[in-house]
C-alpha cells in the first residue's frame, strides 16, 4: 500500500472515532435542555475540563504555526509557551466569581454577563457581533489547517474543499447534537492523541536531522548567532514587540468567549484544579518548537511556501518516515484543529444568539433559543467554510479586525468584576476606540510607535477612556454593580 493510502485510512479512522465520541458523549443527556446544551449543566469534571481548556491551546496554530515561528523567527517562538503557561492563571480568581454570578442569574455567555452588569442591550449586541466575526476568522484558520494537512498527507489526492468539509462537517454535527458535553469529550480524545503525537514525532524528527537535541542547538547557535535571543543582532523581534505580544496574548486569552464561558460549566474547585495543572500544557508544546528549530540549518526557507508548512514538509519531503507516521501527524493536526473548532463554533453560536438575537426579539422561550443555537452552529459552520474555501479580501480584513478586538473586552470584564464605578458609555466608547486603534495599527499603518503590539495600543486607549468617561457619567444607578463586585469576596 502506498504511503498516502495508509495516511488517508488512518486520518479517516480518526475522524470516525472523533464523531463517535462526540455523538456518544451527548447520549442519555436531556436533548431539550438549554442548560445542558450551553454549560453541560455546570457539572463537567476535572479531567474533561482540563482537556477542554487544553484543547483550546492546542490548535492548528500550535501544530503548524508554532514550528513555523520557531523555524522562521527563532527565540520569539518562546512567547507561545510563555503565554500559554501564564494566561490561565487569572482564571483561578475570576473563574469562580464569574461562575457564581452566572449560576445566580442564569448567564452562560460574555454578552449576557456584560448586559446584566451594565444594563446595556447595545453592549451585548456589540459583543455578540464581535464574537461572531472573530470566531469565524478563528475557524477559518483552523479549517485551512485541516484542509491543508489532509491535502499534503495524501499527496494532493484529497482536494482542499473536501478536506475542510469532511473534518469540519464532523465537528458541526457533534456540536449541534451534543452541545458542550460533546465538544468536551471529543477534546479529551483529541488532546491525548495530540500530546502523544507531538512528543514522539517531534523528537523523532530532531533525532533524524541532528542526532540529539543538544547537538541541534549547538549547530544552531554556531551558524545563526542571535537567533535564539530577543532583540540582539541577528534576532527577528525587538524586546518591546516580544513583551507586548506576550502581554496582549495573556490578557486576551480568557476574554475569548469559548474560554470565558467555561467558568459557567463547572464548580469552583474544578476551575482551580484546572488552573493548577495547566502550565503542563505549555510544556507539551516544546517538541513542536524543537521541530521548527531543527529545520533551520536544513531547509532553505525559499523551498516552502510559508513557514507554517515546515512540519508537514519535513515529514513528507525531507525525512524518510513510514506511512503510519504520515497518518499519525495528519490525525494529530486534525485533532488539534478540531478540538479548537468545536469549542469556538459552540460559543460563537451562543454569544450571537444570547447577545444579538435575543435583544432583537426579546420574548424567546428557552426551547426556541435552543433551536436557534442549534441552527446557529450550522450557519456559522457554513459561513466559516465558505470564507475558507472562497476567501474574499475585504471580508478577511473585517474578520481580522474583529479577531484583534477580543482583548478589548478586558476593561469591561475586569471593571464589572472589581469596580462599581465603571459605566456603560465608558465601556462602549472604550471598546469601539480600542478596536479602531488596534485595527488601524494592525492592518493600515506600516509600523507602530516604539514597536508596541497594536492590541496593547488599543488597550491603552481603551482603559484610559473607560477611566475618564466613567468619572463623568456617574449618577445612573446600576443595580448590579455592587452585587457583581461583592460576589465571592
Amino acid at each position, binding site marked *: 500500500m502506498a504511503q498516502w493510502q495508509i495516511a488517508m485510512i488512518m486520518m479517516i479512522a480518526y475522524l470516525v472515532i472523533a464523531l463517535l465520541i462526540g455523538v456518544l458523549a451527548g447520549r442519555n443527556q436531556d436533548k431539550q435542555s438549554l442548560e445542558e446544551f450551553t454549560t453541560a449543566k455546570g457539572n463537567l469534571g476535572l479531567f474533561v475540563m482540563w482537556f477542554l481548556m487544553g484543547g483550546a491551546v492546542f490548535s492548528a496554530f500550535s501544530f503548524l504555526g508554532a514550528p513555523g515561528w520557531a523555524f522562521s523567527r527563532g*527565540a520569539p517562538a*518562546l512567547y507561545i*509557551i*510563555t503565554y500559554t*503557561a*501564564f494566561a490561565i*492563571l487569572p482564571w*483561578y*480568581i475570576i473563574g*469562580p*466569581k464569574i*461562575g*457564581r454570578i452566572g449560576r445566580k442569574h442564569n448567564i452562560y455567555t460574555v454578552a449576557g454577563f456584560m448586559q446584566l452588569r451594565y444594563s446595556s442591550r447595545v453592549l451585548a449586541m456589540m459583543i455578540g457581533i464581535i464574537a461572531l466575526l472573530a470566531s469565524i476568522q478563528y475557524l477559518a484558520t483552523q479549517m485551512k489547517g485541516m484542509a491543508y494537512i489532509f491535502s499534503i498527507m495524501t499527496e494532493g489526492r484529497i482536494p482542499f474543499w473536501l478536506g475542510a468539509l469532511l473534518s469540519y462537517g464532523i465537528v458541526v454535527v457533534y456540536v449541534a447534537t451534543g452541545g458542550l458535553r460533546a465538544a468536551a469529550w471529543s477534546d479529551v480524545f483529541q488532546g491525548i492523541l495530540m500530546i502523544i503525537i507531538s512528543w514522539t514525532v517531534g523528537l523523532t524528527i530532531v533525532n533524524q536531522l541532528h542526532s*540529539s*537535541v*543538544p547537538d541541534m*542547538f*549547538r549547530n*544552531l*547557535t554556531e551558524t545563526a*548567532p*542571535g537567533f*535564539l*535571543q*530577543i*532583540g*540582539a543582532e541577528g534576532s527577528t523581534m525587538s*524586546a*518591546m514587540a*516580544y*513583551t507586548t505580544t*506576550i*502581554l496582549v496574548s*495573556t490578557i486576551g486569552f480568557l476574554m475569548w468567549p469559548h474560554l470565558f464561558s467555561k467558568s459557567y460549566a463547572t*464548580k*469552583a*474547585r474544578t476551575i*482551580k*484544579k484546572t*488552573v*493548577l495543572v495547566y*502550565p*503542563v500544557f*505549555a*510544556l507539551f508544546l*516544546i517538541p513542536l518548537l524543537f521541530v521548527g528549530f531543527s529545520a533551520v540549518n536544513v531547509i532553505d526557507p525559499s523551498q516552502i511556501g510559508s513557514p507554517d508548512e515546515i512540519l508537514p514538509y519535513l515529514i513528507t519531503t525531507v525525512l524518510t518516515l513510514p506511512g503510519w507516521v504520515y497518518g499519525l501527524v495528519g490525525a494529530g493536526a486534525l485533532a488539534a484543529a478540531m478540538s479548537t473548532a468545536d469549542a469556538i463554533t459552540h460559543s460563537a453560536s451562543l454569544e450571537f444568539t444570547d447577545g444579538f438575537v435575543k435583544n432583537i426579539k426579546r420574548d424567546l422561550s428557552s426551547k426556541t433559543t435552543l433551536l436557534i443555537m442549534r441552527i446557529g452552529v450550522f450557519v456559522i459552520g457554513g459561513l466559516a467554510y465558505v470564507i475558507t474555501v472562497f476567501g474574499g479580501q475585504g471580508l478577511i480584513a473585517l474578520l481580522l479586525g474583529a479577531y484583534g478586538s477580543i482583548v478589548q473586552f478586558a476593561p469591561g470584564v475586569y471593571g464589572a468584576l472589581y469596580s462599581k464605578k465603571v459605566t456603560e458609555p465608558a465601556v462602549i466608547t472604550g471598546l469601539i476606540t480600542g478596536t479602531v486603534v488596534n485595527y488601524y495599527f494592525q492592518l493600515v499603518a506600516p509600523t507602530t510607535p516604539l514597536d508596541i503590539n497594536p492590541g496593547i495600543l488599543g488597550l491603552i486607549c481603551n482603559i484610559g477612556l473607560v477611566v475618564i468617561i466613567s468619572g463623568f457619567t456617574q449618577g445612573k444607578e446600576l443595580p448590579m454593580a455592587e452585587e457583581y463586585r461583592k460576589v*465571592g*469576596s
Partner: protein
Amino acid sequence: MSKQRFIKIYCLSLAIPFLLMVFPLFTLGNRETPFIMGLPFSVFWVIFWILITFVIVLFLYRLDPDKDEKGVQ
C-alpha cells in the same frame, strides 16, 4: 487567612515569574550560552520558570482558604 489576603498573595507570587519572562527582567535570561541540560540559556530559562510557576500554583492551592468558593472568610 482571609480571602482578600489570599488573592493578594496569589497575584504577587505569580507576578514574579511572569515579570521574569518579559522585558526588562527577561534580559537576565535572554542569552544563548551557557547551555544547560543541552538547552540554550534562553530556552532553559523559559522552561525553568514555567516549572517553578507550576510549583508555586500547587503551593498556593494548598494555602487557599476557600477552595469551593463557599464564602468562608
